[in-house]
């Protein structure tokens, strides 16, 4: 009798622990499966790492991020495998090479339906997303209004007219930038150059001179390496601007170097904050049941600001020293 009671109790204990084990195991599996997956296609590089970091830290409680690094020899088969394995609710395309690879993947699989994707930290995102299915993006290029409003806040003299020289292919971008500048009381005065010309440097020089004659308060230099390279810098930009007290807004840090005596104010993307902005967009899409219909491409919100007060002082450009604390970096020598 006692033996049968003990045997029954043992059997019940075994069943209890089996049930407990099953419940614990299945709840762990359920918990890890309950978070949606997002696949991130990204290249290597410090800027991209910051974007991914800014994006994932904001959402890692709510989303499983799976990364696939895109290199020169990454095939569309690898992309296919990553998508099949992770079944992402959304794909993030970080950098131009990721977008290009994903474009090829979509082209190779015309009959497939694709999850929504978000393109970020890439040049000309607005053009590229039109070539991709079910994709939106955040622009990388800093709008002129962002740069100019930030410059204006640190300048002692008014900034009402800002000149820009550009090639014809940038026309839509310039027109859009003029639209954003107008409500801020800023006139973006433009000078257009042909896309190609054997005499580009001379035409560029002429363009800069024309803008200066029109009495612009500052110049906004776009990142176009046909108009901005070693040759054009020494033959057009520097000789024309010279030591004139005109602030020059540039988009890359090296152009702010004191020995160049060229750029006085630089604005460029804050990559980590760009990632945070991407996280914000992903969060909104997630709340909308992974639907991107009706969403528009966003402008980048966050920038890094640098000012070279050594060049400003040398050129006699007055600035508000009390506003220097708002700059991310001040070059003093």
């Amino acid at each position: 009798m006692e033996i049968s009671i003990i045997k029954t109790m043992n059997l019940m204990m075994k069943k209890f622990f089996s049930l407990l084990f099953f419940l614990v195991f299945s709840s762990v599996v359920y918990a890890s499966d309950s978070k949606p997956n997002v696949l991130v296609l990204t290249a290597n590089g410090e800027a991209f790492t910051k974007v991914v970091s800014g994006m994932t830290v904001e959402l890692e409680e709510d989303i499983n991020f799976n990364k696939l690094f895109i290199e020169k020899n990454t095939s569309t088969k690898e992309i296919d495998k990553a998508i099949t394995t992770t079944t992402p609710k959304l794909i993030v395309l970080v950098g131009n090479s990721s977008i290009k690879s994903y474009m090829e993947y979509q082209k190779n699989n015309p009959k497939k339906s694709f999850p929504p994707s978000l393109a970020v930290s890439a040049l000309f995102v607005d053009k590229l997303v039109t070539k991709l299915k079910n994709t939106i993006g955040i622009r990388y290029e800093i709008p002129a209004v962002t740069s100019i409003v930030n410059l204006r806040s640190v300048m002692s003299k008014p900034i009402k007219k800002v000149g820009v020289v550009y090639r014809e292919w940038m026309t839509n971008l310039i027109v859009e930038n003029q639209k954003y500048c107008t409500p801020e009381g800023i006139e973006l005065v433009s000078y257009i150059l042909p896309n190609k010309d054997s005499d580009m440097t001379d035409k560029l020089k002429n363009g800069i001179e024309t803008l200066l004659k029109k009495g612009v308060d500052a110049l906004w230099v776009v990142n176009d390496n046909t108009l901005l390279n070693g040759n054009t810098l020494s033959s057009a930009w520097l000789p024309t601007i010279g030591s004139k007290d005109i602030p020059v807004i540039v988009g890359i840090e090296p152009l702010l170097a004191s020995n160049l005596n060229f750029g006085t104010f630089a604005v460029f993307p804050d990559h980590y904050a760009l990632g945070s902005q991407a996280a914000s967009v992903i969060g909104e899409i997630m709340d909308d049941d992974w639907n991107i219909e009706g969403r528009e491409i966003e402008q980048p919100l966050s920038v890094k600001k640098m000012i070279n007060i050594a060049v400003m002082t040398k050129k006699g450009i007055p600035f508000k020293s009390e506003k220097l604390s708002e700059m991310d970096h001040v070059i003093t020598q």
Partner: protein
Amino acid sequence: MKWKIFQTLLWFSILSSPVFAETLYVFVPSSTSPKVMQDNMTALCPNIDVVVFGRGADFRKQLTDSPPDAVLSLSTVIEKSTNFKSVLIGLQNGSADEKYVLAGVDKAPDIASISEKKIGVVDLLGRNPMKDYISELFSAPVKLKSVTKQEDLLPLLSFGAADAIFVPERIFNEIKSKTQLNLVSTPLDIKVGLARAGFSGGKVKENIAKCIESFNNSLNESLGVEKWKSQ
């Protein structure tokens, strides 16, 4: 002889090392850059290891990974933390909190339809806690567009990425002075606490408390306060 030299060197390195410096983490959204703020605080308090964070996510992560002796942040942030208790409170016009407004372009935002709007805020608490917090303040569900820096609030309005921004009235005035957009505000019946200093477990570290009380007008202004008072 060699052993004596070694002992001397060992004592020297222990005594000169900053191992025992008290740590203060600061996260107060401001137009002053975190680096400038940190340099100014370190200059006033050279014996305190001060770290100023420009982003809430970095602050929260470091708070968990390497807890400091004290934090200086907005009351909301300190109240939501489990380990830090407010000891010093910041005051402005004699008050420990300030009025907030909703601000939009051309038209004062309508509070009645707040649930239908996208509201721009500086992230203080993280995505989900921030949503809960703001919804609690408005007693209504709110869709947020969070930014990491105070200066990113204006672009939200410039590019139509948010319908309105939720900011202290003094920050609204600051943003308004920077832009020529027609910013219009809706006054709210919402007050949020100013910056305060919280100490780990409520244990006051005298050096840190003295350090904060020694902040000059410029530094206090960047933190949104005029002076400090013991709670």
